[in-house]
Structure formats: C-alpha cells, structure tokens
C-alpha cells in the first residue's frame, strides 16, 4: 500500500490526520456502495469507473475495503480484463470463503447442476479452453441425463459461467473467472478421484 493511502498512521503532529482519516472512510464507504449495488447487466465495476468514483488511488482504497470486509466474510476480487489494462480490469465483491454444499443448494443450485458445471469447466480447461458443444455434450452424456445437459449448458451460458465464441465453441465465461478458483477445481477433481480409488 502506498504511503498516501495509509493516513491511519500519519506523521506525528500532522494537523490534517483527522481529515485524511475521514476522507479515507468516506471513499471506502463510497467504494463499498459502488461495488454492492449492481449497475448494468453484469456485476462488478471496471477500473475506469472506479477511478471516476474514487480518484486515481482507487486500487489502494479497494485494498483497505477488502481488509475491512474480512470480518463479514467478503473480499474485493479483481478480474483482469480482455485488454489486460487497468481500465478494463473488473472489480467485484465476492465471498471470501466458499459456501458449504448445503449452502450452495439453498442458493438454488442442485447437486447435479453443480456437478455438470464442475465437469464442464474442467473439461473446457483441459481442452485448451475451447470445446465444441457436441463434444461437451457427448462427454457429459456418460454421467448425466440428456435433458439435464441441454438445460444446464444453456443456463450456464446465460449466467456467464460458460461462453460461446463466434466459431460456436464453448469457452470459459467471465463469471467462472470471477467466482471459481479454476486451478484448485482441476486439482481437487484429480485428487478426489485418487481418494475414491484408494478407498476402493
């Protein structure tokens, strides 16, 4: 964190320390409000918008906010944009710790739905990040009923977990990048299989 964004420990005798603290509090509150209320179709706020709302030190303010949100189990997450620039980077609030399976179910996801999504993400990633819909469906057909596959793939494309490019290939969607630790998912699927094998 830069020195100018640490007004909580000002130089001794600094006359404006209270004002700086108040300004930081105000900006942190503003950052929270901007992030929590959905604007437009997709959640999150882009870097250029954040700079407009909070000033050029917005990254440091978001770090402070992320720390402040720790007791509530939330964090500010950064999703790099397609251009890789600060302006295109998307910031959003998300759960710091993953929910339990029963909690996930209360959010409207059935176990089978989550399993389809997990398998789809893992397979797309293993196939260089793109796979034809037919290939994905053929693979999932070995584990899930046909009607659920069609329904789930369409639903996840709509929600942004999966994406379809101009060549009609399925890709990983923006929401997966924002919400899911893909690397851990791949590792856990492989480890889970090993545990199942060892139990047998």
């Amino acid at each position, binding site marked *: 964190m830069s020195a100018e964004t640490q007004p909580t420990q000002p130089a001794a005798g600094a006359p404006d320390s209270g004002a700086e603290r108040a300004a930081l509090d105000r900006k942190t509150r503003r950052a929270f409000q901007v992030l929590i209320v*959905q604007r437009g179709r997709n959640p999150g706020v882009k870097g250029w918008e954040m700079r407009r709302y909070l000033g050029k030190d917005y990254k440091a303010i978001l770090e402070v906010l992320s720390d402040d949100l720790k007791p509530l189990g939330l964090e500010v997450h950064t999703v790099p944009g397609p251009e890789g620039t600060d302006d295109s980077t998307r910031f959003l609030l998300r759960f710091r710790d993953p929910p*339990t399976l029963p909690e996930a179910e209360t959010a409207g996801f059935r176990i089978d739905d989550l399993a389809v999504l*997990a*398998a789809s*993400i893992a397979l797309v990633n*293993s196939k260089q*990040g793109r796979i034809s819909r037919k290939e994905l469906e053929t*693979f999932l057909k070995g584990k899930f009923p046909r009607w659920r596959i069609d329904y789930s793939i369409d639903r996840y494309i709509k929600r942004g977990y999966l994406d379809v490019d101009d060549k009609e290939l399925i890709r990983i969607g923006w929401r997966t990048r924002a919400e899911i630790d893909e690397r851990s998912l791949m590792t*856990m699927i*492989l480890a889970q299989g090993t545990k199942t094998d060892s139990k047998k």
Partner: protein
Amino acid sequence: MPAQEDDKRLEDILRLIELCRNIQSSSVNPFEVDIREKLLVLKRHLPEWDAIDVMLKDSEAMTQLVAIVKLQDQWIKHRASALYIDPLLLELKIQLITREELAECFAKCWHPIAQVDQLTPKGLEKAFVYWRELVPFADRHRDEFTVGEGAGIIGLEELESLSIFTKEEFETRLNAITKELVEKTSGKEIDYRGFIQGKDPEETALRGYLVAFVVTDGRASIRVDPLTEQIFISMIQGKPDDETKSVAIVVR
C-alpha cells in the same frame, strides 16, 4: 492440361482454407497444421496466379494460416499454464467420481459474487413509463398473427359485388361445368378431385366452387370412401334424394 493444373492448384488452396477452418472450429491440436509446408505451397503457386478471384483465395488462405499460428500461440501458453491437465486423464477421473464428489469439489472452489439488486428511483421511473406505454396483450401480436380477417364464407352476391363474377357469367360457367360433368360421368362415379383439377390452384378452387352449386341443387351426388377417403362424384338420375347432408372438402 494447363486448365487442369490450374484446377489442381486452386483445389490445394481451397483444401488448405477448409483445413484451417476445421481446426479453428474444433478443439483439435493446431500443430496438426504444418505451417511451413503450407506456406511453401502458397509460395510455389503464387507466381502462377493471374485471375483476381484466385489471388483473393490465396490471400484468404494466408489469413487462415495466420489464425492457426495465433491458435498455436494460445495452445502453448495454455499448456504451459497451471490449468493444463491431460484431457484423457481428466475425463477418466470425472467418469470415476460421483456427482456428489464433483459438486463438492466445485463448492470448495466457489466464491459467489455478492451484490444487491436494488430498485432505484430512475429504474422505477423507467418501469412506470414502460408499463404505461405497454400495448395490451390482446392487441400486442394482432398484426403478426392475423392477416386481415380469418377464413369465412363468401357468397355469390359478394362475388358479384367484388366483380369476380357477373350473374350471367356465373350461369354460363355453371351450365358448362354441369354439362362437362354429365359427359364425364355418363352414369358412373368419377374421382371428384380429378374432375375439379384445373391448370392452376385458382381454377381448381373455382371449379370446386361451381361443383358445390351443382351438388347443392341436387343434380350431383358426392360419396366419400371411408377406407381410402377418396371422394367420388356422380350425376343423380331423376329427382334428388331427400336425405342429403353437407360435406366439407379441402381444395388445395
């Protein structure tokens, strides 16, 4: 011979474009395309092209090769990243573990987005304007689903008023078709559809319309074979039968 050679060269280019497109629209390894070899083919043929269309194909092939090189770059980056796992191994693992275990793996890596869907005064105003200007449901798709009035009955008077028929013309045509029917049936049943068949759908409809009058007058009779659903028409000898009923026939 030179024309055949030209065709062969053009075929090479078209095959190359198709190959590149197939690679791009599937998850096949892009290194299956030997870029160097394909470039040499293009280079060899380039001085021989003289038609602009072929030159355009050549440049399209070049563009497709560039796209494949881009895919190869992405492929290497992905393979070098931590996300790369042998697809076969992963497919096998996914088939082995249960759905519950898969869902649990997902839940452990999932950090749902926290957000509030809040109705703002501006949003409320937009909703109000939308609701106010919304066309009632009954009127909404009227233009899309109805073309004018629905199917109905059109009488002779109406046809006369529309100048489709004059009374004299109608009588003449009715007499003509009755005479034709008498000649063709000559005391036997004949196929109704065959009889009304005209040279175009309009004439068929017109003949069907006129025959309906002959039948209604009691001068002809229509019989439908219940097994084959074939329709027969015959002239009635003597007085018309009292036991008549209406039959609806679709004329195509």
